[in-house]
């Protein structure tokens, strides 16, 4: 790929004047027939695709109140037009949230509203023709479903809901995205996004155990398929191999070790990520959630903890109970069995940040904060955690808990500018199924607002470490940081900071005797 022209970061973030079609194109690679069929979608674009698509739109609006209301309620006030990081980074007007929705809305109006049927020109109603479908494919894959626009919309219109609906319509007519759908095929077949089979996973974990012991002298375990452990840990598979994710996994292991609670991972459900959300498919999403329920049942655990992954936490926190009855209130046989099995003294599922935070509150963890003294840390609120979940069941807990965990492990913490964090956080630029090299230009440009805020913190406060709790954010930042003259290694897992500062005690007695 040719070198991209990336503009230098501005001192202040300016709203660009619109540049029509600046991101026009064919969109990301399309899924092959094989990939599509694995998920139950047509392998190729079906012949009567327009008819099928319109029928699917009718079904979606009748099944999703969000989509129905959002399509009707928009008044084109323009509040969202300067809120999307992709618009700010690319200036393509179709990356303004309302204009992105309008690609879908104009077709909705044409086929489902009085005004659009009889006065299409007047209300901007359009036919779903080839050009429109191309625009759908291109621009609904320029949305990371981060929901920043929804925070500012006076009616809470959430472009993510529309982009999910549009992607589902496209899948149903046989036009799918390779990256997301290939990954979904792997998870259904093997259990994780990587397609990493059990033996490879077991080896990886053993290697890590050796590595930790060599470094710390303490035998910290990373158990796999350990029946009757108390906790099932479900984490994004990137934690098993990618940098800097893996240091976060080591952090979880150390925290579990110190907590004295027995834990395990599952080779059957070795993936917290659930790309079913990205493609807007309730069915695919439910399948992913059921895998985790099955693993919990098979292993007989009493708690489920989720690792650092943004959209996975949104799915786990907001959707698992709905999809598979992990939590309480579901009434099918296995949900009831799980309810009996899970310990109701803890939130189910629980985020690893919540778990660590609780231990900190109880004084169970000891930190040597000076170990992180070379760092000036800031925290990137990952979009799905920030805008689609909670932690600690306290208002804004999802902003408070990660920061408290960082502060427990580090002496120097500072936030980025206020307009770019918490509920208003800028997306990393790679979420929502866009973390693929065929979208690299978009990813780099879309990261600009976050990078600009980071630069400000670097210049004003000397920030040299960017901590995050999302596998996608971590991968995305590792890749794009150098494009903006940052050190690619400045991105770390929050649990890497925990890992580096945590004082380990040797819990195994034989080891304790040895060292005497």
């Amino acid at each position, binding site marked *: 790929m040719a070198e991209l022209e990336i503009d230098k970061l501005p001192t202040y973030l300016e*709203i660009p*004047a*619109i540049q029509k079609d600046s991101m026009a194109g064919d969109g990301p690679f399309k899924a092959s027939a094989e990939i599509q069929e694995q998920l139950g979608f047509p392998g190729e674009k079906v012949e009567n695709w327009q008819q099928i698509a319109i029928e699917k739109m009718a079904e979606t*609006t009748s*099944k*999703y*109140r*969000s989509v*129905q*209301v*959002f399509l*009707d*309620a928009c*008044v*084109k*006030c*323009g*509040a969202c*037009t*300067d*809120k999307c990081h992709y618009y700010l980074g690319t200036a393509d*007007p179709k990356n303004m949230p*309302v204009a992105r929705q309008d690609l879908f809305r104009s077709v909705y109006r044409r086929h489902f509203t*009085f005004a659009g049927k009889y006065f299409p020109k007047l*209300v*901007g109603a359009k036919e779903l023709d080839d050009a429109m479908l191309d625009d759908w494919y291109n621009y609904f894959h320029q949305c990371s479903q981060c*929901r920043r626009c*929804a925070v*500012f*919309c*006076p*009616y*809470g*219109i*959430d472009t993510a809901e529309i982009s999910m609906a549009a992607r589902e319509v496209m899948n149903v007519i046989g036009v799918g995205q390779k990256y997301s759908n290939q990954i979904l095929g792997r998870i259904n077949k093997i259990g994780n996004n990587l397609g990493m089979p059990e033996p490879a996973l077991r080896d990886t974990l053993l290697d890590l155990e050796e590595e930790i012991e060599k470094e710390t002298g303490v035998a910290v375990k990373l158990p796999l398929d350990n029946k009757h452990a108390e906790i099932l840990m479900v984490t994004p598979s990137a934690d098993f191999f990618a940098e800097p994710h893996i240091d976060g996994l080591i952090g979880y292991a150390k925290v579990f070790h110190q907590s004295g609670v027995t834990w395990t991972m599952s080779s059957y459900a070795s993936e917290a990520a659930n790309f079913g959300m990205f493609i807007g498919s*309730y*069915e695919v999403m439910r*399948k992913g959630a*059921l895998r985790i329920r*099955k693993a919990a*049942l098979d292993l007989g655990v009493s708690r489920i903890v989720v690792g650092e992954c943004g959209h996975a936490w949104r799915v786990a*926190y907001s*959707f698992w109970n*709905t999809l598979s*009855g992990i*939590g*309480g*209130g*579901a009434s*099918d046989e*296995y949900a009831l069995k799980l309810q009996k099995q899970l310990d109701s003294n803890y939130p189910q*599922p629980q985020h690893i940040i919540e778990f660590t935070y609780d231990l900190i509150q109880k004084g169970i963890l000891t930190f040597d904060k000076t170990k992180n003294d070379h760092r000036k840390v800031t925290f990137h609120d990952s979009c799905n955690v*920030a*805008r*689609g979940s*909670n932690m600690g069941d*306290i*208002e804004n807990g999802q902003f408070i808990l990660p920061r408290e965990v960082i502060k427990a492990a580090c002496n120097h913490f500072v936030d980025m500018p206020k307009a770019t964090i*918490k*509920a208003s956080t800028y997306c990393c630029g790679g979420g929502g199924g866009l973390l693929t090299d065929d979208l690299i230009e978009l990813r780099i440009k879309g990261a600009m607002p976050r990078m600009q805020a980071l630069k400000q913190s670097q210049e004003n406060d000397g920030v040299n470490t960017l901590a995050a709790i999302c596998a996608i954010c971590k991968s995305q930042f590792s890749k794009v940081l150098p494009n903006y003259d940052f050190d690619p290694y400045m991105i770390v897992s929050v649990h890497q900071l925990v890992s580096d500062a945590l004082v380990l005690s040797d819990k195994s007695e034989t080891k304790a005797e040895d060292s005497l």
Partner: protein
Amino acid sequence: MTIGFIFFCYLALLICIIGVSRKIVQYWQTPAPLKIPIAPAPLTRTGVFMRMAAEVFLFKSLFRASKWTWFFGWIFHWALVLLFIRHLGYFWPGDTPEVLLKTESFKYASFPLIIGLMGLLGRRIFVDRVRYISAPSDYLMLILLIAIGASGMLMTFALYYPDMGLVYSFAEGLVTLNWSELPSEWIFLAHIFLAFTLIAIFPISKLLHAPGIFFSPTLNQVDNARKKRHISSWAMQKETDKEIFIEQNSEKDE
């Protein structure tokens, strides 16, 4: 002429009431299958109530988004409310209640109304992003509202006073079905015609944002998915039918 006008008024009202009711029933009946509250999400029903009140009365999110749009939009909507209250007096059958008589000064709300609408129109014309997303109907809606406001102001503050006796008996007649002669001033006719046109297009236009906001799942849901199961009827059906299913009972020993 009078008969035609009266017919038009009733037709407009009928379209509005039936159309909006149908939309409300549709929103009501369409399930929200997933919990999707948007941050900062309230954890309790009271919290949702407070959030909704802040959105409906103060346009809180819009305030965060754009101060100018908020300013023009907010003063326009509140002016509209005041003017609506003031107009109730015209339609009130029999003696106008005391409180409505005290709303005389609400007529000055027409100034912020026009200022707000002009501001919103200005944004639509001069801000390139807003211009890009505007359809002809978006301009027409503002122009329609400005025309209603301006014709009202001409009758109130300029010298185009209609015969107020006729205005009262015509408006009251619409409510009491005791129809009377229309005032003949063209400006009054225009005012009434445009106002009822606005009423008629309510259910087929973006004016649906008014009922829509109350049904917006991102705003009206309580953020308590872990504690309380949220499931839609169609998803429950799929669950009982085992439409998507993974064998959960693997008794194999490892």
